[in-house]
């Protein structure tokens, strides 16, 4: 397939069947390989859409500085797009993310400001908001509340999935900014009212939840629970186990958060088998495993791998 530039090649990712992990010929799992995007993650879609919307709105003009709180992937996507479009990018990232994320951000020319690890991405949002006040001329795209994030998935990811899998019964994705689930969910519901939209939310170690008051929690402004059928919390052990199964059985080398999503998808598949109902379950492969090699997620025992992820923002 030919594109005029790298930015034009975002999206149109393959949807591949999982013949070995699918429980029966009637209950099938399908992986949407978002690692095939230019910087290797699903976030390329939202990042590009947010930048181009800000350009259309006149908010983002040549020479601008973009500021964004991110646990990594959105920052990497923004860094690539900002470099090609001539913007400066400052990312606020929790200090307890994988080393590769910082390396990749700097490779694409982004500046990295670390936020304290305790509190995870909540803390990155807080630090970024403070910096935005100090630099009113900087543009914070703010993925958690920017409608262009969910809009990108409504306009591209959703239609791609439905075109490839008209018989879809379930869609499963990770819950971070909620952009993927809100955008794809709304699109699919409009065309398949009975489709189930299911969130898999990573459950981190205790450090990440911080010690602040419960009233200082965070729910992304984009989140609309009415779009979801249900929402599961998945811990690191199940995520690691599933990400290894995906590699061993289907040859797909995915990042750890995809393991959490697959765990939820397999749960739904087993329910469908028990109920004797056919199902076509599509789920998102958020990124490849490359960025997580240094975490030791793919080697040694599950106990050791789980211990190594403790206290990190692994999704």
């Amino acid at each position, binding site marked *: 397939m030919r594109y005029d530039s790298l930015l034009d090649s975002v999206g149109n990712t393959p949807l591949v069947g999982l013949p070995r992990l699918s429980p029966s010929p009637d209950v099938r799992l399908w992986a949407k390989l978002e690692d095939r995007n230019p910087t290797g993650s699903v976030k390329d879609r939202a990042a590009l859409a947010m930048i181009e919307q800000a350009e259309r709105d006149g908010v983002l003009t040549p020479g601008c500085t973009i500021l964004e709180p991110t646990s990594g992937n959105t920052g990497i996507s923004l860094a690539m797009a900002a470099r090609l479009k001539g913007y400066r990018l400052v990312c606020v990232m929790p200090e307890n993310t994988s080393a590769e994320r910082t390396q990749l951000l700097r490779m694409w020319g982004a500046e990295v400001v670390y936020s304290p690890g305790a509190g*995870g991405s*909540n803390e990155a949002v807080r630090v970024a908001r403070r910096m935005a006040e100090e630099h009113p001329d900087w543009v914070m795209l703010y993925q958690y509340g920017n409608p262009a994030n969910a809009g990108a998935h409504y306009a591209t990811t959703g239609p791609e999935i439905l075109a490839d899998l008209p018989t879809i019964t379930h869609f499963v994705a990770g*819950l971070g900014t909620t952009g993927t689930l809100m955008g794809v969910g709304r699109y699919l519901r409009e065309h398949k009212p009975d489709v189930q939209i299911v969130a898999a939310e990573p459950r981190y170690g205790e450090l990440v939840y911080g010690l602040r008051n419960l009233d200082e*929690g965070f729910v992304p402004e984009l989140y609309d629970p009415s779009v*979801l059928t*249900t929402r599961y*919390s998945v811990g690191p052990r199940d995520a690691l186990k599933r990400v290894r199964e995906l590699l061993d059985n289907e040859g797909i080398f995915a990042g750890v958060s995809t393991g959490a999503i697959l765990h939820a998808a397999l749960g739904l598949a087993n329910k469908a088998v028990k109920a004797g109902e056919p199902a076509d379950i599509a789920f998102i492969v958020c990124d490849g495993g490359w960025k997580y090699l240094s975490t030791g997620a793919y080697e040694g025992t599950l106990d050791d791998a789980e211990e190594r992820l403790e206290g990190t923002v692994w999704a």
Partner: protein
Amino acid sequence: MSVEVRIPTILRPYTGGEKNVSAEGATLAELITDLESRYAGLQERLVDEQGLRRFVNVYLNDEDVRFLGGLETELSDGDSVTILPAVAGG
């Protein structure tokens, strides 16, 4: 009938530092009332007049209770309830 409840770090001062506690109740609301009877002050941190507090997530066997029955979610012997603060991702 007994349900295991996982308590987040932030709420452990109420449970004397206990990470996992047992409680009873046919519904989540009853479970929280039972917790309150032994760990005074906990209930107020979890619920307000509208129901579960905005930044508190409660999971029954890893499923978000807001998509089950909310505070009226029915519980069974051997269930596991996890309480967590809402955090960002992305």
